[in-house]
């Protein structure tokens, strides 16, 4: 059987259906753009730094010889030259730090590329090294999977897990009915136990009060049929217009200036990067915004639907963490 191009596309898209570019990644790019983070230290730069170090060492040797010239009757070749070679400290890039951190977690806790793949990494470079944390999102509950923190200080790497204080008897082996999920539980959760893991995550999130009722926002009760992902079309209002309408909705609902409100990560709450297009089976098209607002009294999780044809507010729902 010959494989046509579109069949290969379908095969890849099917096998990698869970690999999706999402707003988290968009946000990461925009943050890096604004923070002026170096994308990656190029090998050429590292080589240049290493060469500079070698030149420095050679200069030290030369200075040592100049400051201690050999006696005229001394054979230079037999004269020992005592000098100190200064090691060249080339800081790790973020990518290198994450690589090393992954390996440290895999070695210490037995995680594999597959199970570690469900964790999102966050890297902070420090003066003496770096700190990388791994935390899950999505179907694997982050409380159960815990947070892995790997720290490199002055060349020494240590790895820790937020469940280190839990007796291994309580999490090693067995099913998902455990207080913490290690390698075995994660592997099971990614395979035959995926439905069970998803249900557990939903249940815990519901208890936490973290989730707004997205089933309601995108479900049949509101629209008559579920909303599905859609692409912007001709005739839709521009996303900027939808953002303006969403801003006005925030103003009216909360009495706040959206420009003065930030999400829990300190970013503006309404940007094109976080706009999603949805369409119901009956053809209703909406721009959906789901900002999280960090207000003095509480954290608010908001869902705003702006009609993509008329620009009118269709729905605004919100929930809080209940900290207020």
């Amino acid at each position, binding site marked *: 059987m010959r494989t046509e191009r579109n069949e290969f596309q379908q095969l890849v898209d*099917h096998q*990698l259906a869970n690999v999706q570019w999402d707003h988290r*990644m968009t946000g990461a790019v*925009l943050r890096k*753009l604004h923070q002026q983070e170096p*994308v990656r230290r*190029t090998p050429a730069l590292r080589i240049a730094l290493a060469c500079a170090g070698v030149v420095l060492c050679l200069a030290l040797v030369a200075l040592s010889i100049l400051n201690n010239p050999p006696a005229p009757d001394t054979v230079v070749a037999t004269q020992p030259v005592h000098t100190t070679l200064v090691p060249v400290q080339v800081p790790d890039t973020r990518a290198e730090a994450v690589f090393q951190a992954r390996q440290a977690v895999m070695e210490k806790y037995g995680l594999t590329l597959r199970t570690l*793949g469900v964790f999102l990494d966050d890297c902070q470079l420090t003066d003496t090294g770096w700190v990388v944390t791994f935390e899950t999102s999505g179907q694997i509950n982050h409380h159960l999977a815990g947070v892995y923190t790997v720290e490199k200080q002055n060349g020494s790497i240590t790895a820790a897990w937020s469940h280190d204080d839990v007796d291994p008897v309580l999490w090693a082996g067995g099913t998902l009915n455990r207080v913490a999920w290690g390698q075995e539980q994660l592997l099971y959760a990614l395979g035959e136990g995926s439905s069970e893991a998803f249900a557990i995550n939903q249940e815990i999130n519901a208890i936490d009060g973290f989730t707004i009722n997205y089933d309601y926002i995108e479900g049949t009760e509101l629209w008559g049929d579920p909303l599905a992902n859609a692409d912007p079309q001709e005739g839709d209002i521009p996303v900027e217009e939808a953002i303006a309408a969403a801003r006005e909705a925030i103003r009216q609902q909360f009495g706040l200036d959206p420009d003065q409100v930030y999400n829990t990560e300190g970013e503006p709450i309404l940007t094109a990067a976080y706009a999603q297009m949805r369409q119901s089976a009956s053809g209703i098209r909406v721009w959906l915004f789901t900002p999280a607002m960090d207000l003095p009294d509480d954290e608010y999780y908001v869902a705003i639907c702006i009609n993509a044809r008329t620009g009118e507010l269709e729905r605004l729902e919100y929930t809080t963490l209940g900290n207020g």
Partner: protein
Amino acid sequence: MQPDLTPDRQAVLERLMTQYGTTLLRMCSIHLHDISLAEDAVQDTFLKAYKRLDDLRDDSSERAWLMSIAINTCRDYLRTAWFRHTDRRVSLELLPEPSCESIWPDATVITEVMSLPQKLREAVLLRYYQGMKLKEVAEALHISPSTVKQRLDRANTILRSRLERWYFNED
């Protein structure tokens, strides 16, 4: 150098990310054999693209331009010491589970594409996954269309020998 953060340019970047993010991520995942690393690579790709937005000519293929940056970014990643000293052969079990039961009789074709030599893999991914024309693939890889054709032929020869029934139709 301070990047130009004007709203127009940022809007273009956001559109590129929306339009090409997922397909780039999947392509880089196969190319790099690592989904987390592919995320880094695609983020780097978009940052590079942003800085080179002025290079994007109206008459050039936006997709080919972006794919070219992505392929070069992946090459940088593949050149790192970490890659050279690590066994990057990845089986399907390391990929995320498909969203539902596979309808495909034999999904090992992806694994076999992953195991192709880098140059052949690049050509196959651009041609057969991204669906680019030979000319576009040639532009993205900075080689001639005939070289692209040669690489695809070689890839097909390898795949035919490894896969009983699957190979690409370049006719």
